[in-house]
């Protein structure tokens, strides 16, 4: 019996493609339905006052609130973009300061053993102190201005940046170091030509972590010691009992955090274009 295997194969292929697509659509629709359902339940629960409106506001109201905040200063005395600018400025300043100081420090500590040995004890003392704990000292020394908040952000970003940079340069492939050495490179040349590029992926991992923590820190710092910024806005929402303002603040911060780490990833993909794509 002669069978037409060409045809059987072609049929099997189409069947398999169909099955795969069906699966994909199934899981995608589950995800979409869940998100929509959550929003809907939330909206209806508020609309029919199943939950107290003192504690919740509906998604539509929150979005309205965000739009309203663009042109209204009430009740916290600032427009949305002013708050965003105030927070973002501090976050980026502290973040970049930590990068400028932390990356070289991590590199030197990772490469030069003496440097590691000297700095490590002091670093280990500072390392486990969360950035918020620095607030009293920073306020005392620098007041409650932009610089003070930037320094608080800095303390949080700094540790993550140093640690990741350190791990990165420490994991430099020994073979690549040997290549440079046999080519007659000095220790410093090897550091620049091999160590630093090898550490790059981990440096960016560290920057992403520190960017994430920076947005958390800024909210707390602004709640505690500031008269503007998104954290302040949320805190005011709390004081005036306006739930929609709190929720609006949370959402805006989430979006900003997302954009910021997206920016870091963007820089990463440009700088590290030599890395294999996943």
């Amino acid at each position, binding site marked *: 019996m002669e069978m037409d295997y060409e045809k059987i194969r072609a049929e099997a292929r189409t069947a398999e493609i169909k099955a795969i697509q069906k699966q994909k659509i199934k899981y995608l629709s589950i995800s979409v339905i869940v998100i929509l359902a959550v929003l809907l339940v939330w909206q209806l629960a508020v609309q029919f006052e199943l939950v107290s409106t003192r504690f919740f506001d509906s998604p539509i109201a929150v979005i309205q609130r965000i739009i309203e905040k663009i042109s209204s200063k009430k009740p916290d005395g600032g427009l949305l973009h002013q708050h965003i600018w105030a927070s973002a400025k501090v976050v980026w300043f502290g973040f970049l300061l930590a990068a400028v100081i932390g990356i070289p420090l991590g590199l030197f500590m990772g490469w030069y053993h003496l440097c590691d040995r000297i700095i490590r004890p002091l670093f280990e003392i500072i390392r486990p102190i969360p950035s918020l704990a620095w607030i009293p000292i920073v306020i005392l020394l620098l007041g409650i201005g932009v610089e003070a908040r930037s320094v608080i952000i800095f303390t949080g970003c700094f540790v993550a940046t140093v640690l990741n940079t350190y791990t990165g340069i420490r994991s430099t*492939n020994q*073979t*690549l170091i*040997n*290549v*440079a*050495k*046999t*080519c*007659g*490179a*000095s220790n410093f*040349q090897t550091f620049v*030509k*091999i160590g630093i*590029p090898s550490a*790059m992926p981990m440096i960016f991992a560290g920057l992403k972590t520190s960017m994430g923590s920076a947005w958390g820190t800024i909210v707390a710092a602004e709640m505690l010691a500031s008269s503007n910024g998104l954290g302040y806005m949320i805190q005011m929402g709390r004081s005036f009992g306006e739930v929609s303002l709190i929720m609006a603040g949370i959402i805006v911060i989430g979006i900003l955090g997302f954009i910021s780490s997206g920016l870091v990833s963007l820089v990463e993909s440009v700088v*590290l*274009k*030599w*890395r*294999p794509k996943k």
Partner: protein
Amino acid sequence: MSDYKVEVRDLCKNFGSLEVLKNCNFNIKRGEFICVVGPTGCGKTTFLNTLTCLIPPTSGEILIDGEKADPKKHNLSFVFQEPSAMPWLTVEENIAFGMELKHWPKDKIKTQTEKILELMGLTKCRKQYPHELSVSTEQKVVIGRAFAMEPDLLLMDEPYGQMDIKTRFYLEDEVIRLWKELGSTVLFITHNVEEACYLADRVLILSNKPACVKEDLTLEMPRPRDIAAPEFIEKRVHVENAIKWW
């Protein structure tokens, strides 16, 4: 001036009380192709690292052109077993890497890079990064980088270890071609006896740990060699028996 390009005298290396190298003695003539074979775990890596001055010997000395070997002064070049192209450099940047470290003049680097790219047929992928290449092509880049520096001594540590026969034969012929073209002095380490007999002017056979040069075998067979010729097989079996542990 000495007759030999490289002279190794009474080379010893101990790690604590563990003797790894013991009285290694051999010479390499200018432009010679030497293969080193030895049983697995015989201290091969230490042997190489000592030769390239990555670790200092416990006693004994390595002379290049009659002077003590120094990677800053002499041109030593190393092809490692694992792929060692810099992942962040393109193919042409990788080839120029060693020359730049040696501060060659810019135009000389450029012409030399072109020459090597041409010789190895890598012109097509000159702008590519290593992760975009196959393992064998990456190894070609590394070999090109090593030859480009016109080294006094080129050390190759089993560069074709994991490759299949066909690719290996091809790359072996390639290395012979480069060697002839550029007149380098090559020390090639391998686990594969057939490969050693195919490539070498002379084969150095290492003993078990602590390693020393057990036998220095000159192979006078015309190239390209026929791996099925009785003379070739005789030499191959001879070397194999000298190191066989399995």
